[in-house]
């Protein structure tokens, strides 16, 4: 082996180590942000401290009830509720929602070979929103009924309609664009479908005013509706989506050389596109059904990963997932903490931060 050959090999290993280091760093950030997220809210860290005492750590509330004062037990129960029923699913939900968007973004950018592609392209997000609006309108969920405390059935129903809306929107976009061969036509069709379905959502909301508040939350994007069932749905959809995307990652690499070259390599382009569009719609629809419209996380996550490491799609997809989770959790923690006890809708925060990032990105690309 020549010295040059050896140095090429060490460089390759070093690049791979960088990707692993980024992954570990992001995992660490997830962990730290989760702990911080559990402590942020209108009552601050007090529920955490309450539970951290020996009696709190000691097991179920019923067993501590017998040994503790009634007032302490109520504190404990309240603390448990705040932490376990509200903050934990929200925090983990932000992580999961962000991960879904990050994955969808990386898939969209690879599939359309456009670094500015976004999971909300193809009208999938507007379709999902219309699905949610229709479901809410039919179920008659009013301001009195808390979405956060809604059960599995409602969650699955919302996710289902969001997914149906998302997939229908994507199919409509594909039909209008007459397939995915023509990227520009596809993006334009996506914009048209997005605008029309967005208008339909507004119409549905106008016709049933009792869903106005819930819909406003969805349109602004919030983790406030995420309970354990919602988290469960995101995990149940997210894991298979990631596995499928990873399994197709080498074909995404091949697609990056252009469709003709990819076809000459014997890749099944038609089936590949169908599978990737399904993953894209499923991940986006699921995220939107739980957290509403959260802008730019899907766009920014793969970009931030690429600016740190240059890799093939397999690490890129996994790292974009982690990066998306970290971004949304960070934004959510900020949104909850910055004006506590008041709360900003996290979608507004990501829109402002993400918009700025996109402008900077455009500026740098032009420069």
């Amino acid at each position, binding site marked *: 082996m020549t010295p040059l050959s050896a140095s090429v090999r060490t460089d390759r290993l070093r690049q791979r180590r960088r990707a692993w280091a980024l992954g570990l760093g992001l995992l660490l950030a997830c962990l730290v942000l989760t702990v911080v997220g559990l402590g942020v809210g209108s009552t601050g860290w007090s529920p955490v401290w309450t539970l951290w005492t020996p009696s709190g750590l000691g097991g179920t509330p019923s067993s501590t009830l017998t040994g503790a004062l009634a007032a302490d037990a109520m504190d404990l129960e309240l603390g448990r509720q705040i932490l376990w029923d509200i903050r934990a699913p929200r925090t983990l939900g932000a992580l999961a929602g962000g991960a879904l968007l990050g994955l969808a973004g990386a898939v969209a950018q690879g599939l359309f070979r456009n670094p500015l592609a976004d999971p909300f392209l193809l009208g999938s997000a507007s379709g999902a929103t219309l699905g949610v609006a229709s479901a809410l309108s039919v179920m008659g969920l009013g301001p009195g009924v808390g979405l956060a405390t809604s059960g599995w059935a409602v969650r699955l129903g919302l996710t289902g309609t969001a997914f149906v809306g998302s997939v229908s929107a994507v199919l409509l976009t594909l039909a209008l664009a007459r397939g995915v061969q023509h990227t520009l036509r596809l993006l334009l069709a996506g914009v048209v479908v997005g605008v029309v379905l967005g208008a339909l959502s507004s119409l549905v909301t106008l016709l049933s005013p009792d869903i106005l508040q819930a819909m406003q939350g969805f349109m602004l994007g919030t983790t406030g509706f995420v309970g354990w069932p919602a988290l469960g749905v995101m995990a149940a959809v997210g894991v298979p989506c990631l596995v499928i995307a990873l399994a197709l990652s080498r074909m995404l*690499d091949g697609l990056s*050389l252009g469709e*003709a070259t990819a076809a*000459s*390599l014997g890749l099944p382009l038609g089936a590949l596109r169908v599978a990737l569009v399904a993953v894209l719609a499923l991940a986006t629809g699921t995220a939107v059904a739980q957290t509403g419209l959260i802008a730019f996380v899907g766009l920014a996550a793969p970009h931030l990963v690429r600016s740190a490491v240059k890799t093939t799609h397999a690490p890129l997809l996994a790292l974009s997932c982690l990066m998306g989770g970290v971004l949304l959790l960070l934004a959510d923690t900020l949104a909850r903490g910055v004006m506590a006890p008041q709360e900003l809708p996290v979608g507004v925060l990501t829109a402002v931060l993400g918009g700025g990032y996109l402008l900077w990105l455009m500026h740098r690309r032009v420069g």
Partner: protein
Amino acid sequence: MTGMATHIAISAQQVSASLGDGSHQHPVLHGVSVAVPAGCWLSIVGPNGAGKSTLLKCLGGLLPCTGTVQLLGQDLHAWAPRERARRLSWLGQGGAGSDGADDLTAYDVTMLGRLPHQSWLSPPTDADHAAVEHALRQTQAWGWANTPLGELSGGERQRVLLARALAVDADVLLMDEPLANLDPPHQVDWLLLVRQLVASGKTVVSVLHEITTALAADEVLVLHQGRVHHCGPSSDAATHRALEAVFERRIGIHRLMDHWVALPKLKGPTC
């Protein structure tokens, strides 16, 4: 040459094709037939818009066309895609559409040439790594194996894409303007590389707009307005006459130190 030379590696019979979509289709190729023996280098030349790249795409099965294309004696579309991909390698014009690969390193890009040899989900084998290193060394691109494609110059990028096409280790190589962006020393390297490939029994079909380079091939196919104007050995006087004709007699083909060179005929008195 051995008996292999009598085998036809790739051929087109009465191939016609159109470009554009929907109602805006316009015919580009009109019943083109050509047969390339194994171990032969064929250059496709012709004026702009003659249908050179379109013919190459038809030979690669990358563009719908009427007529038949045969690869190694079997209809192109009868091959299973991966089987076909192992035998037929394609290098697109100027790396068109490869912008998406800007973040991949030269090594990763070249490894994509091994996709037809790899089973789904299994990691690259030692043979794959060896083929990638060999291909990158063949195009003098090994030195920047770990550089992302987006950070390379046009010529360096072209050499990596060429290595990607070589890494397939196919019997037939189709190359569209492979010399684009290459400086003269690397054009010479490419010529030597193609000769070496052909000597080892591979078949090369290249589209070249540089007539002098095209004349280094074994055979020259002269296309004009989507039809075969002439096809013959590059050293044949008839081939030279055909070339001069399709280029409106604005070029002259001369012999210079064992090479055929095409020179522009400048109008007016020489000074």
